[in-house]
C-alpha cells in the first residue's frame, strides 16, 4: 500500500515538475487557482492569494478576477496596486463601471492624500536623516484604522451582494455590484457570457438565458473551444462522443447520426441541432446534415448539449435533447488565423478566420475548404451490374464555405447582429428503409438577424438548401432515384424576459415563434408548404434558498397534427432544484416532448425499384394522419464541483417513455387497380407507409461524467452511460437492440513545459443488433427484415501538438480511429485509421 502511495506521489511530483503552464482544461485549472487564491485571501494571506488569482487570470482572463484582485490589494492596504488593478478591470468595460469608477476616484484621492502626507511639511526639519519610528500608540491607532476600514468594506460588500443573483448558497467570491452578462440572455446570443462567478460553467440553452450549469433544469454537457482544439477532432459529430449518453453513429466521412439516450438510426431525427439558436434540423428529412453545416470547428466558442427533452422551450424535434453550437462572438478572436491540415485519405483542409471591428461594429469572417476520402467504398469500378450514379466514388466530403457574422452596438447599448453563410459541398447521407447511401451535391446557405431591444430580443433567419441527391450506386438499367431538393425555412421569433418579486424571485421568459417551410422535392410530389407557430413561457421561481422551481410550457401549432388538420402539441416541463451546498445541485424534473412528422413522413410517394426486377417497385408513402412522436421523461440529477481540486461531476438517472414512434410499416399488398404506376412504368409490389407504432418504449438509464484538472497541464474527462430499453406491444423491439447498452468515454490531455500538448481519448460502444429491411436474396420481390449484429467498438483518437512560435505558430499531429477498423452500422463504411498534420498560424 505504501509503495502504491509512494508511486502515486512520485508520479504526481514528476507531472508537477514538467508542467508549469496551463492548459488542459483552462476553466477548471483557472477555477482551482481562483478558489485557492480566494481561500488564502480570506485567511489573510494576501500575497500568495493574489498570486493565485493572477495565475487564474493568466490561464483564463475573466474581468471579475481583476475585481477580486483589486479588492484583495485594497484589503491588504496596497492602494496603488488596487488602483492599477481596478483600472484594468474598468478597461474591460464592466456593467458596474460607474460604481467602480467612484471607487477608483476615492483610491486616487486617498493616494494623493497619502503622498501629500508623506511630503515634508513647511517648517519642518530639513534633515535627511531617517525619521524615528512613531510612538507605539500611533501604530496601534493605524492598525485599528485599517481594521475599521476592512470592516467597513466587508459590510459594504455584504450589502452589495443581494443586488445581484446569488450564484450559490454561500459564495466565497467577491462579485461586482452589477454583473456583466448577468441579464437575460437568449440561447442565440452570440456574446460570450462568462457569468458573475469566475470560471463557473455557463449555459444558455437549458433555459434560453445564461445561467450556471448548476442551475440548469436539464442534464447539460459543455464542450469548449479548448476541448475541441485539444481533442484533435475532425468533425462535429465525433465531438459528441464525449457527451454522456450520446449515440454517435458514423456511416461515412461525411455522414453521421447523433442521438441521445437511444433511438439512433439512419436519419436520426430526435435531437434538435442549433447553431447560435438557428436550427440545422432539416425538416424535409428529419435529420441534421452534420458535414454540411456552414461553420468550422475553429469558429466554435462552445457546444452546449442538453441531454433530455427540450420541447418545452424549443418545440418540435427537441425530443431527446438539444445541441446548441455557439460560435465565437464577432471581434472576440485574433485578427487572422490560418489553419491547414493534410493527412491520409487525401485529406486537405484549409481555413481562415478573422475577427475585427471598427467603432461599434465587430465582425467575424471565415472561409474554408475541406476534402477527405471515404474510408471505404461499397463497390469497385467498372462493374457489369452496378454503376456509379453521382458524386465521386472516393470523395466522402468536399466543400467550400464562407461565413460573415457582425454585431453593431448602438450608443444605448442595444445590439444588432447580422450574419450569413454559405456552404457548397459534395457529401453523402444514408436514408431509411431499402435505400442505401445517397450522394448530396449542393449548397446550404443562411441569413440571420438578431436585435436586442431591452428586455425583448427578436430573431429572424432564413435557411436554404438546394441539393442534387440520389443513390450513389444503382444497378445498370434500373430506374434511377436521382432527385433534387430545394428547401427554404423562414423563421421569426421574439423573446421577452422579466424579473419580478412575488413570494420569491421570478425570472420569466416568454417567447413566440413562427416558421414557414417550403420544400420542393420530387419524392414528396408537388411543392409542399407548412406554416408553424408556437408560444412558450418559462418561470424560474426562487421561492427560498436553497430551493428553486422551473416551470416551462410550450404550445406548437402544426398544420397536420389533428388527423391531417391543424392541431396543437403541448410540451410542459417542471423541474425542482435543490442546492444545499455551494457547488452542489440536485435536480428532479418531469417533462414531455414531441417530434413532429417530417415532410418525408407526411407526404412521400416514392416507388423504390426492386433490385433485379426492373419492372417492379415497392411504394413508400407518407401519411398526413400521423400523430407526433411523444416522449415523457423523468430525471433525477446531481451536479457538483470541488473547485479546489479541479473536479466537476454530473450524474443523471432517467426514464424515457416513447410512444407513437413513427416508422415504416411492413409491406402491404395494394388493390389490383393500383398495381401499375404509370409515373414510373412499373408494377407496385406493395406499399410501406409511415405509421405510428403501437409499441411503447421505455428506456431507463444512468449517466455519469467527471472532469478533473488536478494539476496544471493535466485534464481528465470520463463518462459512462448505461441504458436498458424495453417495449410493450412489440414482439421484436428494433430500437431496443439497436441502442447500445453501455457507452464509455475517457480522455486525457496534458501539456508540458516545452509547449508540447498530448491528448488521447477513447470511446467504447457496446454491441448492437440492427433490424434492417432488405429484398430477399432468393426472391427480390419479397422484402424481409434481417437481423444484423454489430460488434462492440472503441474509437480512439490522439493528438500531439507543439507551439513552435508563441501565440503565432503551432503544429499538431492527429490520429483518428486508432482503435482499429470497424463499422458503426451494418451498412456503413469500414472505418479506418487516419493521421493528419495541422499547421496553425496566427500572424
Amino acid at each position, binding site marked *: 500500500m505504501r509503495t502504491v502511495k509512494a508511486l502515486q506521489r512520485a508520479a504526481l511530483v514528476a507531472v508537477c515538475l514538467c508542467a508549469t503552464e496551463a492548459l488542459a482544461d483552462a476553466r477548471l485549472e483557472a477555477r482551482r487557482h481562483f478558489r485557492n487564491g480566494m481561500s488564502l485571501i480570506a485567511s489573510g494571506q494576501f500575497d500568495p492569494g493574489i498570486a493565485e488569482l493572477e495565475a487564474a487570470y493568466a490561464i483564463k482572463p475573466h474581468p471579475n478576477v481583476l475585481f477580486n484582485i483589486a479588492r484583495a490589494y485594497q484589503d491588504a492596504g496596497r492602494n496603488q496596486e488596487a488602483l492599477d488593478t481596478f483600472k484594468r478591470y474598468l478597461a474591460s468595460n464592466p456593467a458596474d463601471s460607474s460604481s467602480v469608477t467612484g471607487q477608483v476616484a476615492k483610491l486616487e484621492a486617498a493616494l494623493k492624500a497619502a503622498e501629500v502626507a508623506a511630503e515634508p511639511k513647511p517648517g519642518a526639519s530639513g534633515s535627511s536623516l531617517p525619521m524615528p519610528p512613531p510612538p507605539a500608540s500611533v501604530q496601534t491607532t493605524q492598525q485599528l484604522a485599517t481594521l475599521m476600514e476592512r470592516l467597513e468594506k466587508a459590510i459594504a460588500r455584504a450589502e452589495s451582494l443581494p443586488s445581484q443573483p446569488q450564484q450559490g448558497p454561500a459564495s466565497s467570491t467577491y462579485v461586482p455590484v452589477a454583473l456583466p452578462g448577468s441579464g437575460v440572455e437568449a440561447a442565440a446570443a452570440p456574446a460570450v457570457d462568462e457569468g458573475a462567478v469566475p470560471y463557473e460553467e455557463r449555459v444558455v440553452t437549458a433555459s434560453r438565458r445564461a445561467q450556471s450549469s448548476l442551475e440548469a433544469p436539464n442534464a447539460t454537457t459543455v464542450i469548449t473551444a479548448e476541448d475541441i482544439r485539444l481533442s484533435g477532432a475532425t468533425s462535429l459529430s465525433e465531438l459528441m462522443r464525449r457527451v454522456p449518453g450520446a449515440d454517435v453513429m458514423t456511416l461515412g466521412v461525411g455522414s453521421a447520426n447523433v442521438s441521445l439516450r437511444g433511438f439512433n438510426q439512419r436519419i436520426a431525427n430526435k435531437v434538435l441541432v442549433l447553431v447560435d439558436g438557428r436550427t440545422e434540423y432539416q425538416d424535409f428529412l428529419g435529420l441534421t446534415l452534420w458535414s454540411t453545416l456552414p461553420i468550422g470547428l475553429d469558429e466554435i466558442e462552445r457546444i452546449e448539449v442538453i441531454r433530455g427533452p427540450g420541447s418545452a422551450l424549443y418545440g418540435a424535434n427537441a425530443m431527446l435533447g438539444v445541441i446548441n453550437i455557439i460560435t465565437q462572438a464577432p471581434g472576440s478572436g485574433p485578427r487572422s488565423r490560418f489553419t491547414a491540415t493534410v493527412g491520409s485519405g487525401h485529406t486537405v483542409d484549409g481555413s481562415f478566420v478573422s475577427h475585427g471591428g471598427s467603432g461599434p461594429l465587430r465582425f467575424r469572417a471565415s472561409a474554408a475548404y475541406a476534402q477527405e476520402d471515404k474510408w471505404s*467504398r461499397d463497390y469497385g469500378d467498372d462493374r*457489369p*451490374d452496378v454503376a456509379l450514379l453521382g458524386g465521386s466514388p472516393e470523395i466522402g466530403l468536399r466543400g467550400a464555405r464562407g461565413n460573415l457574422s457582425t454585431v453593431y452596438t448602438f450608443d444605448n447599448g442595444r445590439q444588432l447582429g447580422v450574419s450569413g453563410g454559405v456552404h457548397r459541398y459534395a457529401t453523402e447521407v444514408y436514408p431509411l428503409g431499402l435505400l442505401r447511401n445517397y450522394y448530396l451535391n449542393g449548397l446550404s446557405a443562411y441569413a440571420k438577424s438578431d436585435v436586442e431591444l431591452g428586455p425583448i430580443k427578436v430573431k429572424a433567419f432564413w435557411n436554404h438548401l438546394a441539393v442534387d441527391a440520389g443513390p450513389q450506386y444503382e444497378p445498370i438499367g434500373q430506374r434511377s432515384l436521382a432527385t433534387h431538393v430545394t428547401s427554404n425555412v423562414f423563421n421569426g421569433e421574439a423573446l421577452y424576459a422579466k424579473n419580478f418579486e412575488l413570494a420569491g424571485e421570478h425570472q420569466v421568459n416568454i417567447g413566440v415563434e413562427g416558421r414557414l417551410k417550403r420544400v420542393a422535392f420530387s419524392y414528396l410530389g408537388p411543392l409542399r408548404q407548412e406554416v408553424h407557430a408556437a408560444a412558450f413561457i418559462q418561470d424560474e421561481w426562487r421561492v427560498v434558498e436553497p430551493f428553486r422551481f422551473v416551470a416551462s410550457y410550450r404550445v406548437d401549432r402544426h398544420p397536420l397534427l389533428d388527423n391531417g388538420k391543424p392541431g396543437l402539441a403541448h410540451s410542459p416541463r417542471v423541474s425542482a432544484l435543490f442546492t444545499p451546498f455551494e457547488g452542489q445541485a440536485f435536480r428532479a424534473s418531469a417533462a414531455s416532448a414531441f417530434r413532429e412528422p417530417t415532410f418525408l413522413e407526411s407526404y412521400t410517394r416514392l416507388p423504390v425499384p426492386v433490385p433485379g426486377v426492373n419492372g417492379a417497385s415497392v411504394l413508400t408513402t407518407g401519411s398526413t394522419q400521423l400523430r407526433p412522436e411523444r416522449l415523457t421523461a423523468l430525471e433525477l440529477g446531481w451536479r457538483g464541483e470541488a473547485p479546489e481540486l479541479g473536479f466537476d461531476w454530473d450524474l443523471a438517472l432517467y426514464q424515457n417513455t416513447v410512444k407513437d414512434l413513427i416508422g415504416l410499416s411492413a409491406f402491404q399488398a395494394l388493390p389490383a387497380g393500383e398495381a401499375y404506376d404509370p409515373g414510373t412504368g412499373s408494377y407496385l409490389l406493395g406499399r410501406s407507409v409511415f405509421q405510428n407504432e403501437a409499441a411503447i418504449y421505455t428506456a431507463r438509464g444512468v449517466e455519469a461524467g467527471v472532469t478533473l484538472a488536478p494539476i496544471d497541464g493535466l485534464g481528465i474527462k470520463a463518462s459512462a452511460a448505461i441504458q436498458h430499453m424495453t417495449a410493450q406491444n412489440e414482439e421484436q423491439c428494433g430500437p431496443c437492440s439497436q441502442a447500445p447498452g453501455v457507452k464509455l468515454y475517457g480522455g486525457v490531455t496534458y501539456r508540458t513545459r516545452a509547449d508540447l500538448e498530448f491528448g488521447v481519448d477513447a470511446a467504447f460502444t457496446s454491441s448492437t443488433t440492427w433490424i434492417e429491411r432488405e429484398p430477399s436474396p432468393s*426472391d427480390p420481390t419479397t422484402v424481409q427484415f434481417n437481423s444484423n449484429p454489430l460488434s462492440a467498438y472503441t474509437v480512439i483518437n490522439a493528438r500531439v501538438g507543439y507551439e513552435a512560435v508563441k501565440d503565432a505558430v503551432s503544429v499538431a499531429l492527429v490520429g483518428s480511429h486508432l482503435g482499429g477498423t470497424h463499422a458503426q452500422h451494418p451498412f456503413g463504411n469500414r472505418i479506418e485509421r487516419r493521421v493528419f*498534420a495541422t499547421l496553425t498560424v496566427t500572424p
Partner: protein
Amino acid sequence: MSRPIPASTRALWALAVSSVLSAGCESPPVVPTADHQQNTRAGRIEGTLVAQTRARGNAIVFIYDADRPPPPVGTGRPKAFTVIPAVELFGQALGDPSATGPFTAPFTLSLVEPGRYLLRGFIDADTCRTGAQPCHTSDFIPWYGVTGEPNMGDVGGAAVDLATGASRILEVTSDADGWPQPLTGVAVSFSDTATVPLDRPAFQVAVGTRTLDAKSGTKLLKLRPQVISQGGVEQRPPGFLVQYVDDNHDGIPDDANHDNVGDLWPKVVVRKLAGTVGVLDENDLDHNGIPDAEGVDYVHTDGMRDGQPDVVVLAAGLVPDALIAALTDEQGAPRMKPIIAPELDIAIRPIALDARNPAAPAPLASLPSGRYSITLITSTGQTWRVPNELDPALAPALGLPSVETQSFTIEVP
C-alpha cells in the same frame, strides 16, 4: 516571439508530416457492407425490343431459367421482368394504331446472375384503342395468378434465333476472375403473327363433386368458360382452345402415351395444395416454381421415400371423345388447326404421382389427403387454375373481386 526549434524536434515533425502525406495517397478500399446486394456479383442482359405490330401497350419482358421454360413447354415461372412503357416503345405512333413499325426501344434486365436464360414477353395491348369488340385495356398485373398472363389481343415476343425462329438460349458467363460479363445486343422481337387469339382459359367446374378417394374410381368433371369482368380482372373466353399436340411439327398428332389417341391441348394438371387455405402449392411455399428445400416427402410405390419434398399431382387429363370428333375432318384425318370447345370434360384418377421430375413422374403408394388444384395449360402458353385469388376467402384482402366458382378444390379425405 519565436524560439529556436531543436533539430530533433524538426526532424520528428518532418518525419510525421511526410508519413501523413505518404499515407494519404491510397484510395479507399472496396469493402462491401452487410447489404446483400453489395456482396453479390451479377451481370446484366441488355438489348433492343423490336415490335412490328398494330397493338399498343407496354411491353413486358420476362427472363426464365432455360432449364425451367414457361408454359406450354414447361411450368417455369419468371425470375424477373422489366417493363418498357408504351410511350417509349411506340413514341409518336402510340396514338396511331395503323402504324406497324418496326418500333424499337432499349431494354435492360439488371442484376442477372451467371446462367442460361430464355427471354419471353408480350405487349400488354389496350385493344380498345383499335376499336376491337369486346376489348380490354392493358390488364397485366404480375402479382396475381389471375392477372399475370397475356390475354386476347396481346402480342407475344421472345428472344429468338433469327435463322431458325427457335427460342434463343442466352448465357451470362463469368470471366477468369469470377466477374459475370454483361450480355448485350440481345433482340427481343414482337410481331402481330404472335397475337394471342383468346383470353386465358378461365373456367369453372360446372358439373362434378369435390371429393375424390381411392375407392371412388375416376372422377369426371365438366369445365365451362368463366367470364370475369370486374375489379381489374378481364376474362371473356368464348371457349377453350383445343388442338392436337405436335411438338415435332410433323403435322401428325403426337402420342406420348402410345394409346393411339393423339395428345391434346389443353393439358390438365391436378396438383396438391399446401395447408387448408390459400392457393400455394405444397412444397413450393415461396411460389417460385421450384420445389422447396424442405417439405413433405411421401412414400413411393416401392415403399421408400426419395428424401426430397414431392411435387404431388394426380393422374388427370381431358376426356377426348367429343374433342376428337371435332378435330377430325370429313376424311377422318386429324385437323391440326385449333378449335374452340365450349366445354371440356376432364378425368381425374385416384392415382398420385411425384412429378418432381416432370419427365418421369413416380407413383406414390397412396393418395395424399388434402386439397388439390386444377390447372389448364393451352397451346399458347396461357393457363388458368382453380382455386385462385378470386376465391372469396382471399380476394377482398388482395383487392380482387370475389368469384365463388374460383374457390373449387378437389378434396382427398
